[in-house]
């Protein structure tokens, strides 16, 4: 059975990936305001006037962790693009933060929008006129097919395998519960609440393991937005070139939205980095005065990773100190360049955790592997570096896994309250459905087929 999705509250990042300092996560649907309100702290969005923009913070309601400082636009139906309640969350963190905001929305009642779905809703709700209908249909067809292909491509083979196995295990449990309901007179083993509890907890821990790979999987899939900052002439361009040229074959140039910002995609030991170097590359004599810290500030704000470059052959300048201060709370690597020259800079005078420091020579291409190691340390727990490990790669998968996890928590809670097994089964089935949505698998009458192949019942 096809999921009924037409009235869900949908969410998606509505700004192009990797471009611009600000990203917008858009929500549309009946629950848009409620969902946004659930994951933000700062002002009560359910009370604010329509078509207002509000300062707030996105938090993870489970852990209370603050994810990002945001501006939230609340626009109530019907005067919106989709004629439904629409909320736009303007994030200003990097890719990682924006993705986390989306993930949190998907784990708290929203569903990831299909491509073209906002437009489709606008049409269905009479917002777009007839002449546009044909193109909407084309859009749905082409984009959905492409998205489906993409989703399949993104579905890592071992992840699909793992989820398939998990679903089969759950299915066998469900069939055993069902057979005792529909054929109570037969002497099939009764599945006890205790057995169901054990199964739920076992699946829970496997999903937990999977979720741990999520942020790493996402980095692998979408790249890490990396800003190279530093005062002029410390060797930022050389570093960028060294990193970007490591594997020439997969380096692409992507022109950014601002003419003097260049992004390069580099693959550092399997980890894609979106290298952003502000000004450094294009600095010209007349611009040198103006640029520097100001530009860097913006880059620092939006990046997932900072490579702060210092010159080992010179003393720390005020500008260096300022950059050190600015990047203090970010994930950063302090790259002390020019190791090939006589070293004047005393590393002990740098106000940082000594672990953060890496000494390199971009010109001699020495010490680059230490940068890689540091990236590993900062972003990876070691799970994804193992071969053949299932990795969760996108927000949709994370959202569904978290919903499956919620269903399992409900199973456990139900068992603790000694609810009858057929009620606890409701949540177990829900978990099974959510996992099925990840792999896009759902054969008709799966459960009934399982029931009759697993058990010998009937007159």
């Amino acid at each position: 059975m096809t999921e009924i999705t037409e009235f869900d509250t949908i969410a998606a990042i509505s700004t192009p990936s990797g471009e611009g300092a600000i990203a917008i996560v858009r929500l549309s649907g009946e629950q848009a305001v409620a969902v946004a309100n659930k994951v933000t702290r700062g002002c009560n969005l359910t009370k604010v006037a329509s078509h207002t923009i509000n300062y707030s913070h996105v938090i993870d309601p489970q852990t209370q962790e603050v994810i990002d400082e945001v501006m939230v636009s609340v626009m109530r139906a019907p005067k919106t693009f989709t004629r439904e309640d629409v909320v736009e969350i303007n994030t200003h963190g990097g890719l990682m933060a924006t993705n986390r905001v989306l993930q949190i929305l998907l784990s708290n009642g929203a569903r990831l929008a299909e491509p073209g779905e906002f437009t489709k809703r606008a049409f269905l709700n009479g917002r777009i006129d007839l002449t546009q209908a044909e193109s909407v249909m084309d859009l749905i067809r082409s984009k959905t097919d492409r998205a489906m292909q993409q989703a399949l491509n993104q579905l890592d083979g071992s992840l699909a395998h793992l989820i398939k196995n998990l679903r089969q295990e759950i299915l066998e449990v469900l069939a055993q519960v069902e057979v005792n309901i529909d054929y109570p007179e037969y002497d099939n083993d009764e599945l006890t609440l205790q057995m169901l509890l054990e199964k739920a907890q076992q699946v829970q821990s496997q999903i937990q393991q999977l979720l741990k790979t999520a942020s790493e999987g996402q980095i692998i899939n979408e790249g890490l937005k990396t800003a190279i900052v530093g005062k002029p002439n410390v060797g930022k361009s050389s570093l960028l070139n060294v990193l970007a040229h490591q594997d020439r074959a997969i380096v692409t140039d992507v022109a950014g939205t601002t003419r003097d910002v260049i992004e390069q995609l580099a693959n550092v030991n399997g980890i894609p980095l979106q290298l952003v170097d502000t000004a450094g590359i294009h600095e010209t004599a007349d611009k040198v005065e103006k640029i520097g810290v100001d530009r860097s500030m913006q880059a620092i704000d939006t990046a997932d990773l900072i490579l702060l470059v210092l010159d080992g052959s010179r003393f720390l300048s005020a500008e260096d100190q300022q950059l050190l201060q600015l990047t203090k709370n970010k994930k950063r690597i302090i790259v002390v360049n020019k190791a090939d020259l006589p070293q004047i800079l005393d590393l002990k005078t740098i106000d940082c955790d000594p672990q953060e420091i890496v000494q390199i020579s971009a010109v001699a291409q020495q010490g680059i592997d230490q940068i890689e190691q540091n990236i590993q340390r900062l972003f990876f727990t070691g799970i994804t570096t193992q071969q053949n490990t299932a990795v969760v790669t996108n927000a949709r998968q994370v959202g569904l896994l978290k919903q499956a996890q919620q269903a399992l928590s409900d199973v456990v809670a139900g068992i603790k309250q000694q609810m009858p097994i057929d009620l606890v089964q409701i949540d177990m089935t829900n978990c099974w459905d959510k996992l099925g949505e990840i792999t896009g698998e759902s054969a008709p009458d799966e459960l009934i087929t399982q029931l009759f192949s697993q058990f010998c019942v009937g007159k």
Partner: protein
Amino acid sequence: MKEYISTENYDVIVVGAGHAGSEAALAAARMGQKTLLLTINLDMVAFMPCNPSIGGPAKGIVVREIDALGGQMAKNIDATYIQMRMLNTGKGPAVRALRAQADKNEYHQVMKNTLEKEPNLTLRQAMVERLLVKDGSCYGVVTNTGAQYQGKAVVLTAGTSSRGKIIIGELMYSSGPNNSIPSIKLSENLEQLGFQLQRFKTGTPPRVDKNTVDFTQMEEQPGDQTPRTFSFETPITDYLKDQVSCWMTYTNEQTHQIIRDNLDRAPMFSGVIEGVGPRYCPSIEDKVVRFADKPRHQIFMEPEGRHTQEYYVGDFSTSMPEDVQQEMLHSVAGLEHAQMMRPGYAIEYDVVEPWQLKPTLETKVVANLYTAGQMNGTSGYEEAAGQGLIAGINAALRVQGKDPFILGRDEAYIGVMIDDLVTKGTNEPYRLLTSRAEYRLILRHDNADARLTQKGFELGLISSNRQEVFVKKQAQVAAEIKRLQQTRIKPSAAINDFLAGLGMKPLKDGMLAADFLKRPEVNYATLLQFIAPAPEKLPIAVTEQVEIALKYAGYIKKEAAQIAHLQKLEAKKIPENLDYDDVKGLATEALQKLKKINPTTMAQASRISGVNPADLSILMVYIQRGRIAKVKKEA
């Protein structure tokens, strides 16, 4: 045969007086339609050709639903049962179900008598061979005796009679159930009219003489001592105290060996049987082959009635040759000397592929023609009766020129069943299972009246007396729920002693009675120890509803939210004559399925396998485009 035109004109003609036909005819007659009920054999009205029991999981709930809509099955079994049990008492309220053993002959007699006494209803023995159809609409039937009866709507419930064929080992002969006359010509006529028929198979076990059974080697299964009834109208005092037991025994390795040694003579495996049999109703030879590692299979010995010595050997369905059946029976503990009174047999028959039906059970091929029961591909008396009732109601509504009556998947198991049939079709005899229902916590047997009585009343199938009783019950339930949600239990020695007895912490602050009831150890009766009783004494039927509503409120709320979602999509109607070929962008499979099923709502379309979300989106956009165009034109 020279045909003659009967001067008797009817509103509704029902063909077949099994479980589906009886309900269809009674519903139409009770809704005020002049109704004719034709059957091949009057001595087989509401006959049970297989097991002598009614109810069980899912099926028992259907019986209650039929009752809440003013049908007869529940009352008929209440009047003729010889044993009754509540199943799944150790599980939640959603899956509890009543099952009764029927006195087979009495069940038939009481139903026949009910039909005979019904005003507006004519019961007659005749075999229908042909439908009268003009311009794609059915207006009557022709019998084998040459009578042409005209009617405004016709309901076919031919059961397993349609080109029925009985198979026992090497023996095969044309026959309806239990050696009745098969209906051959009607099938041919349906094919001529353009219906696609499919061949199904079912079977029944042998019957043995009670006097030759050694029950000391079997386990007794007595009925419950708690008074219960299927019908919401049957007084609880009519409860039967003198119940008859069933007995359980097992097959063994020897039985299995006999079966394996004779598989070459088993029609199921020798290729004689073409029809598709149900997975959930396998013959014993099928079980032994498919579950080869199972050392034994259960056998349930069920009495066929109070005034007969025949016992039904449940779970021993077989089409093995008679001599092998004898040998198999004699290998079973307690049946060593059993005298077989009737051999088991397999029966093949024609069914109308159910995707050719609308959710009203009217056929898409011929208007004013409805089909119900086993001929729609289902199995089971309850499934048949449920469909018969819906077909009868819709035939009557058609005659009255009123809107059709369709039950949703969120309203009744009957709704789940019919939606499954018309949306997905079926490639084996369809049996209702609780796992087919998405919202089974809502579709309980105990609340069938709450779900459906009002609808039955509006259809004219529920008396005003009964409606009054029902309305009062609902008011009492609502008032008591409200009272418990407002009553606080204060900490007291009594309650803290009670909690201490359960090893639980004492109550420090007050607690709402409704919340206290949520605790697993607490039921309504224990609750009453700590709060004042209700202003008026409440019957168990009321307190049971109160308890379930409050105890499982969290789960009920979850399912209610899903239902709300479903209903929005059900409200999106698809125009009946939509030209799917004109919808650009539908995937090929979706296009074919949509054209074949012709769903009435977006929700139904979403349930068709092979129709994916993109297809649904495109369809919605297409329909919306049409609406906008229409509005513009009008403007």
